[in-house]
C-alpha cells in the first residue's frame, strides 16, 4: 500500500504496537494484523486512534475491516471525505 492515508494508518498501527511493528512492515503486509503480531491490546488502541483521528467507528467483534491492512485502509478511505 502507498499514499498519505496508508502511511498515516501504518504509523498508528506502529504506535498501537508500542513500536514493535515497523510502519514499513505494516505497509507491506497483506494478511491479518493479528497474525502479523498486533495483540488484542494493540487492536483496541488502534480502534481508538482511528476513531479519534478520522471519526471512523470500527468494530472489533466481527473484525472484518481489521482482517488486513489493505481492508482497514479501504474502510477508512470510504468513510472519510
Amino acid at each position, binding site marked *: 500500500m502507498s499514499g498519505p492515508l496508508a502511511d498515516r494508518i501504518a504509523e498508528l498501527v506502529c504506535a498501537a504496537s508500542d513500536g514493535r511493528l515497523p510502519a514499513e512492515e505494516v505497509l507491506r503486509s497483506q494478511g*491479518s494484523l493479528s497474525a502479523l503480531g498486533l495483540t488484542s491490546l494493540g487492536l483496541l488502541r488502534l480502534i481508538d486512534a482511528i476513531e479519534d483521528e478520522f471519526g471512523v467507528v470500527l468494530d472489533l467483534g466481527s473484525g472484518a475491516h481489521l482482517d488486513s491492512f489493505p481492508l482497514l485502509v479501504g474502510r477508512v478511505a470510504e468513510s472519510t471525505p
Partner: protein
Amino acid sequence: MTPRTVPQMLALRAEQEPGGAAIVVEGEGTLTFGEWERRSHAVAHGLLDRGVRPGDRIGLLFGGRDWVDFAVSYCAVQLAGAVAVPLSDRLAPAEVRHMLDHCEASAVLCGRDLKAPDGERWAAAPAELEGGTADPVAVPVGPQDLAQILYTSGTTGLPKGVGATHANLTFGCETRPKRRRFGHSRHLLHAFPIGTNAGQTMLMNALDARPAMLTPARFTPARFTRLIESYAVGTVFVVPAMAIELLNAGLHERHDLSSVVLLGSAASALPPAVSVRLSAAFPNATVTNYYTSTEAAPAQTIMIFDPARPDALGRPAFGGALRITGPDGEALPPGEAGEVWMRSPAVPRSYYRDEQASAESFRGGWVRMGDLGYLDADGYLHLVDRESDVVKSGAFKVSTLQVEAALYEHPQVAEAAVVGVPHPVLGTVLAAAVVPRSAGMSETGLRAFLMERLAGHELPDRVLVVDGLPRNQSGKVIKRELRGLFDAAVTGQTEGT
C-alpha cells in the same frame, strides 16, 4: 421469601420493579426486569418444546453487544431446569468445541453473527425460541441443582469446567429494595466478557444490586471512559490493564470522572502505583480490589486501597474464611508464606465431571487458590510471586501448557516452550520460543495457525524462533533461562525470522 434459585431472584425483582432498567447495552438497548422475566419464560418454553430436560447442559455463545439476549437465555435455561454454560465469542472454535464436548451440551444458543461449532447438538438464536407463550413455566428447580458451568484455565493444559449450584449463586442476595448493594449509584459500568467469572458476577449484580448494569456494545478504553461521563456512572469495575490504558492515554484529562464513587478491580489486583494514580484521576472514588477465583466464588477478600498497606488484598468478606497452608495441610502463622486457601460461605463449587481435579483443589470446604501468599499481623492477605503454568494476562488466566500444546500441533514445530514475561499494561504476557523442524518458519504463519486454536488473549505476545531450548540435565526446560532469551531479544537482537 428469600430467593434460593436464580429464577426466584429474577421473579422477586420483576415483582418489585417491573419497569426498572436491569441491563443497558450502550447503542443496543435496555432490558427491564419485567421484560427479562417475560422473555426468559418465553425462551424456556421454546427450550422445553425442543426437548430440553432438567440437568441438560446448554451452551450460551454470546458477545458483549448481546448481553441482553445472553441474560434472557441464561435465566431461560435455568427456568427449564437446565444448566447454563456461558461461552465468550472471543474463544477460538477449537476451544468452544472442547467445552461443549466436555459437558456434553445438548444445545447451543448463539448471539448475532455467531455460529456454534459442528457437533451432535442443535443450535438456535434466542429469538427463534421465543415465539410461543410467555406463561410461567412450571419446572421444579431447587437450590442444590446445578445452575451453571464456567470454563477456566487449569494447570493440566485443558480448561476445566467449574460447576455452581443455585445455592452458591444466590448466596447473600438481597430482598429489601433499600438495602441493595451499590445503592449510591444509578449505573454500574463494566466490560467483562461473557463466560468469565467477573462477567457472571456482573450478571448477578444486574439481578441483585441497586444500579442498572451498563456495558459498552464494543469495548475500547476511550468508549468506556466516554460512557462514565455521559451516564454520570457511580460504580465502575475494571481490570488493571484497562485502568492503565485509560491513564496512559490521558483519557481522565479529557472526561469528567467525578461521578464515580466506587472504582473496583474485580478480576485481578491493581498494582499499588496504579491505585495511587487512579485515586487522583477519579477524585471522588474509593478504589477497591476484590480477590477471588472462578472456583472460590462467592468467597473473596475486599481491600479498599490503603497507602499504608499498598499491596494488601484485604481480609475475607461476607462470612468467608482465609488461611495460609503449609505443605502438610497445616495453617501457618502470620508472616509465613504458603498456599492461599479460601473457604466459601456458600455451598462450594466443584469441577464438573473431574473428580480427581476436584479432590486436588477442593478440600473439606476449602478451595486452593493456586497462589502463594502470607497474612500480616492484622490478617490482611499479601501475595508472593511464583513460577506457575497458569499466568494472569489482563483479566484472563492463561495456561502456558495449553499454548504449548497448540504450538506442537503445527507440523513445522519441533519443540516449543511458553513462559509469562512482564508487561507494563497487562501485567504478564505470553512469550513463546519455538524450534522449527527446518529453516524458514514464518512467524506470521504460526500466529495465523494459532488463531484457529486459541483465543486472542492466549496468543503469544512474542514469538522467538531459536535453534534449541535451554534444558537441564534431566531434559526439563529451564524457564528462567528462557525468559533471559526474551530479555536479550528486547535489547536489540532480531526477534523471529
